């Protein structure tokens, strides 16, 4: 019998670089508390962190939401930023539109979306130039 999904959501504030990872860290603590297997927690953490980073650096802030179901979890990030003109290009490892200033901090390596895809069982990107981007990544709990 399915339980009500557990939902946790945080606002990602524009320009607050020092806060990158805060929401993801809270998600991680929640997943551990819920008794989710540690390899799944680690995968979800990577997805959440990269999504959080993207929403802040490229999207100018937005929302990060995690929904935990019985057999899977979903991480969603949304922003009202500039959108991604060419998703295929953005998915290429090493491609980045980040500024030099951001790169010097170790962000913007062009690995975010590939990292998310690698750790998700499913990933969808809904983006429109001038409107924003929504990303939805799923991690299934089914064991080997």
């Amino acid at each position, binding site marked *: 019998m399915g339980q009500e999904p557990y939902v946790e959501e945080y606002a990602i504030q524009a320009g607050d670089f020092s806060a990158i990872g805060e929401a993801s860290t809270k998600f991680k603590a929640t997943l551990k508390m819920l008794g989710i297997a540690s390899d799944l927690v680690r995968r979800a953490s990577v997805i959440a962190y990269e999504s959080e980073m993207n929403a802040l650096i490229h999207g100018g802030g937005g929302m990060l939401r995690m929904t935990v179901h019985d057999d899977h979890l979903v991480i969603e990030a949304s922003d009202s930023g500039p959108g991604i003109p060419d998703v295929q290009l953005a998915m290429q490892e090493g491609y980045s539109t980040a500024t030099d200033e951001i790169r010097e901090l170790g962000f913007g390596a062009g690995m975010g979306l590939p*990292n998310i895809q690698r750790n998700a069982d499913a990933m969808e990107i809904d983006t429109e130039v001038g409107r924003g981007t929504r990303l939805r990544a799923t991690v299934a709990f089914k064991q080997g």
Partner: protein
Amino acid sequence: MKIGEAVRVTGASVLVEGDMDRELGGAISGDLLSFIMAEAREGWLWITIQTHVNAAAVAVLKEVPFILAASGRMPDRTLVDRCSVEGITLATTPMSAFDAAGALREAGFPISS
């Protein structure tokens, strides 16, 4: 190799003392946060020149117990504070990342698997 021994071998100054007896399962060197997010494993040492607060979030998420700042980089106060809260050992070595890795290997640090 234990964290305490890695500190000694690299001549590092400890800014935050976590569990110095914790056995390190491997090590990684890098300054791109997404690269560390992709490659670091639980229980590893991370050698980097990134000394801002975001390094702590990466360490927490990847369960990295020891951040070693290389080339004499001095971690920001905010990173020191965050590592204290999270129990992550934070140290700085005058050695470059290359030399620190070399010193660790010479002292018997195993190949990361």
